């Protein structure tokens, strides 16, 4: 069974600084997709960034980038120039082509002014 592990229940960062959230996963599939979702107190799940496993290049979306290490089954999220609005619960997730998403337990990010 696929599993996703986020080992950091809580993280904090100073405004304008950089923070990295960790995620590891376990799968026997060779072709799959990885995602980072943000969940603010409103409960709305917002897709932050995604990575196709067959792509070697790390995905980037503005201030958000990932470090995808396929052999190590690691998928970390880097947030640069952190803003107060980045404060939320962040979930790492995995799926195989349109199937269910498997989520980690989440990392609560606090951004200090």
């Amino acid at each position, binding site marked *: 069974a696929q599993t*996703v592990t986020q080992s950091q229940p809580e993280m904090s960062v100073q405004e304008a600084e950089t923070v990295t959230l960790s995620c590891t996963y376990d799968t026997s599939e060779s072709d799959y*997709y990885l*995602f980072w979702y943000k969940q603010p107190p*409103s*409960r*709305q*799940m917002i*897709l932050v960034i*995604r990575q*196709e496993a067959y792509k070697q290049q790390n995905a980037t979306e503005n201030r958000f980038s990932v470090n995808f290490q396929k052999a190590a089954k690691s998928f970390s999220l880097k947030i640069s120039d952190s803003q107060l609005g980045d404060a939320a619960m962040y*979930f790492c*997730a995995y*799926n195989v*082509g*349109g*199937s*269910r*998403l*498997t*989520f*980690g*337990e*989440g990392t609560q990010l606090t951004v200090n002014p």
Partner: protein
Amino acid sequence: GAGVSQSPSNKVTEKGKDVELRCDPISGHTALYWYRQRLGQGLEFLIYFQGNSAPDKSGLPSDRFSAERTGESVSTLTIQRTQQEDSAVYLCASSTRTSGPPYEQYFGPGTRLTVT
């Protein structure tokens, strides 16, 4: 355009009662998913619909849980004889199959269920 909507936003029910949670997916989205999120935890998959058939319902935790979908639109998740451990946020997501993978899932705002 309109996103995924869910109703009610919050539901408080007494132990032993039945509840129905509704999800309206994005128009044209053929795939629909239900997830459960207990307090402070990640999302757990419950069931997946493609059209009105459910090829994967392996996440339903017991036979008290059931779901149905009408065509490619509304889905209802029903919990019979609710228990306190059913208290959670129930999230619905939909996706389209007209574009290629990874078939991004768009989430609704969830229904917070509290069983007293």
